[in-house]
C-alpha cells in the first residue's frame, strides 16, 4: 500500500483494504478469520490501518463491521427468499448465500436488489441445489419477482374503451411493469402458498448487529411434482398476488412484455390454443375473456411519456 509525504494512505487504497477486512468471510463461530482466503494475514492488514485499544486488537476492532456486514446481508437475502431457504434447509442456504454474495456483492444503494442475481448464480453453481436444481432456480426467480413487483412502477390503467381502441390499432400500450410473466416446470405458486405467506412489506434500514435468524433444526421442505405452469406475479391494490395463466395467455402476455405489437401477441396466443378452439367464434370468445380479466386487474397502460423523470438529468 502506498503512502503520501505525510505517511497517509490514499483514501481509495485505505478504503479498498478496509473493505477487504469488512467483507472477508467469517469462521465457523461467526468471528473474523486471522487470514484472508489467499493466505495473507488479516491481522497484519488490520494493524496497518486501525488503532488497537480498549483491550481490542486492530482486527478485533474491525470484526464488528465484519460481522455486521454478513449478518445484515444474509438476513436480507433470507427475508426475500423464504421459500428457497425452506427448500435448501437453513444451513445450506446460509452457506450458499455467502458464496453468492462473494461472487455478486451488492452494487446498489438499496438492499432490495441484493437477490437480483441469485437465480443466475444457482444456474452457475447448481450443486447448491442437489437434486432440486430446476425447481430451486424457479423458486428463486419467482421470489425475486415478488420483491420486484412490490415496488415496481404502475401507470394509469387503460379502461375498456381504451382497450378497444388498442385493438383497433389506434393506440400503443404496455403491460404494467409490476406484472411479471413466467413459464415454469413446477407449480411454484402452489408450493409457496403451501409453505408460507407471501405478502411483502417495506424493509427498514437498520444499523444494528443481530444474530442471523437461522434457527437450528429448520426442516427442509420437499419440492412438488413437475407440472407445466404458466404464472403471473403481479401487484394489485398494493398487494402481491399469483395469477395462474394457461399457455395461450402466457404467449400473448409475454409477447407484450417483450414489446411486440398486440397483433403479434394475439397471433402467438392463437397458435397456442388447442385445435378444437380454433374457430372464429371460440377464438373471439377466448380473447374477449382474457382481456376482460386482465383489464379488471389493470394490467395495461399507455407507454409512459419520456419526460416522466420530471426533467431530472
Amino acid at each position, binding site marked *: 500500500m502506498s503512502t503520501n509525504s505525510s505517511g497517509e494512505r490514499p*483514501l*481509495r487504497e485505505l478504503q479498498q483494504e478496509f473493505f477487504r477486512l*469488512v467483507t472477508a468471510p467469517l469462521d465457523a463461530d461467526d468471528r473474523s478469520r486471522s487470514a484472508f482466503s489467499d493466505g495473507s494475514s488479516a491481522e497484519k492488514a488490520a494493524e496497518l490501518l*486501525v488503532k488497537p485499544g480498549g483491550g481490542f486488537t486492530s482486527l478485533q476492532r474491525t470484526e*464488528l463491521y465484519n460481522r455486521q456486514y454478513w449478518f445484515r446481508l444474509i438476513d436480507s437475502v433470507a427475508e426475500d427468499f423464504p421459500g428457497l431457504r425452506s427448500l435448501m434447509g437453513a444451513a445450506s442456504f446460509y452457506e450458499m448465500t455467502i458464496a453468492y454474495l462473494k461472487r455478486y456483492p451488492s452494487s446498489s444503494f438499496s438492499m432490495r436488489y441484493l437477490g437480483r442475481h441469485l437465480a443466475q448464480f444457482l444456474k452457475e453453481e447448481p450443486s447448491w441445489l442437489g437434486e432440486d436444481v430446476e425447481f430451486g432456480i424457479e423458486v428463486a426467480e419467482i421470489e425475486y419477482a415478488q420483491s420486484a413487483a412490490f415496488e415496481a412502477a404502475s401507470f394509469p390503467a387503460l379502461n375498456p374503451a381504451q382497450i378497444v381502441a388498442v385493438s383497433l390499432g389506434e393506440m400503443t400500450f404496455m403491460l404494467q411493469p409490476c406484472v411479471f410473466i413466467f413459464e415454469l416446470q413446477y407449480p411454484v405458486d402452489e408450493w409457496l402458498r403451501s409453505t408460507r405467506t407471501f405478502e411483502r412489506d417495506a424493509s*427498514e434500514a437498520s444499523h*444494528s*448487529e443481530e444474530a442471523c435468524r437461522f434457527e437450528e433444526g429448520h426442516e427442509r421442505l420437499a419440492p412438488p411434482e413437475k407440472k407445466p405452469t404458466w404464472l403471473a406475479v403481479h401487484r394489485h391494490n*398494493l398487494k402481491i398476488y399469483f395469477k395462474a395463466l394457461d399457455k395461450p395467455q402466457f404467449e400473448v402476455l409475454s409477447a407484450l412484455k417483450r414489446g411486440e405489437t398486440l397483433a403479434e401477441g394475439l397471433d402467438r396466443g392463437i397458435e397456442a390454443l388447442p385445435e378444437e378452439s380454433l374457430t372464429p367464434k371460440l377464438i373471439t370468445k377466448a380473447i374477449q375473456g382474457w382481456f376482460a380479466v386482465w383489464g379488471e386487474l389493470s394490467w395495461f397502460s399507455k407507454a409512459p411519456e419520456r419526460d416522466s423523470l420530471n426533467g*431530472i438529468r
Partner: protein
Amino acid sequence: MPANRFNGFSDLGVGIGLRVPHYQHILENRPGVDWFEIISENYMVDGGRPLHILDSILEHYKVIQHGVGLYFGSSEPIPRDQLQKLKRLVQRTKTPFLSDHLCWGSVDGKVSHDLLPLPYTMEAAKHTAEKVKMAQEFLEVPICVENVSSYAEFKDSTMTEWEFLSEVVERADCGILLDVNNIYVSSINHRFDPFEYLKGVPAERVGQIHIAGHSTYPAYLLDTHDHPVCDPVWALYQQALQKLGPTNTLLEWDDKIPSFDEVHREACKAWAFLGKKIDVVQEATL
C-alpha cells in the same frame, strides 16, 4: 438557532422516525406529531405501497428526509441514477433539507450497506466536502451531515472527529445533523470526552439533533436504536441545547420497535428540555 439556512429555516419541534409497524396506527389515528423523518432509500422506488403510504402521510404531516446511502466519504462518485431517484423523492416530499452520514460505505462499485468510519485526514475532508457540495447543488436542498457512531479509528487520522466534522462542513458549506447518542457511543468506544466534542461543533451549522438508545456490551457500546434514550445521552442533549438553543430533534427507534405510543412518549421527553426556557450561552462559556 432553531431555524437556519442549513435546515431550510424550519422550526419543527420533536419528530419521530416513520417505521413500517406504525403505518396503520398513524394513518388511522393521526397522532399529534410535529413531523416524521423517513429513510430516503426506503422510498426511492418506482411505485407500490411505500410511495402510497408516504403520500398518505404527506397529506397530514411534515416529512424530513434522512438517508443512509449517499456515502459522502467513499472515494468514488455518487451514482447519477441514485441522485436522480433521490431528487424525485425530494420533489415529492418537499423536504426543506435532507441529511445523510459523514461516512463511507462503498468502494469499486461494491456496497457494504454500513456506515463505515473515515480516516480523519485533510485528503478525506476535502474529498468528502466536494461530494457534499456536488450533491447539494444537484438536489437543490440544504444538506446536513450526521456524525456516526464508530468502533474503529484509523492510524492515519491527523485530527479529532469533531475537527474533521468542522473541516468538512466549512469546506462544503453545509449543515450538521448532530447525533448526541452517536457522540456518546463513540466517546465510550474511543475514550474521549463527549462534552469536549460538543465544544468543538460549529453551533451555527447545526440544523437538527438525533437522539436514540444503544446497547451496552462489556467492552463497548453498540448503536442499535433499540432502547429508550439513556440518562448520559439526555445529559449530553441538554448540554447541546444549552449551546445551540432549541433545535429540531428526532428520536430514532429502528429495531425491536415498540408501540407507536411508547416511541411517542419517549420522543416527547425531549420537550422537557426544549420546552424549558433555555438561555443560549456562548460557546466560550460551555
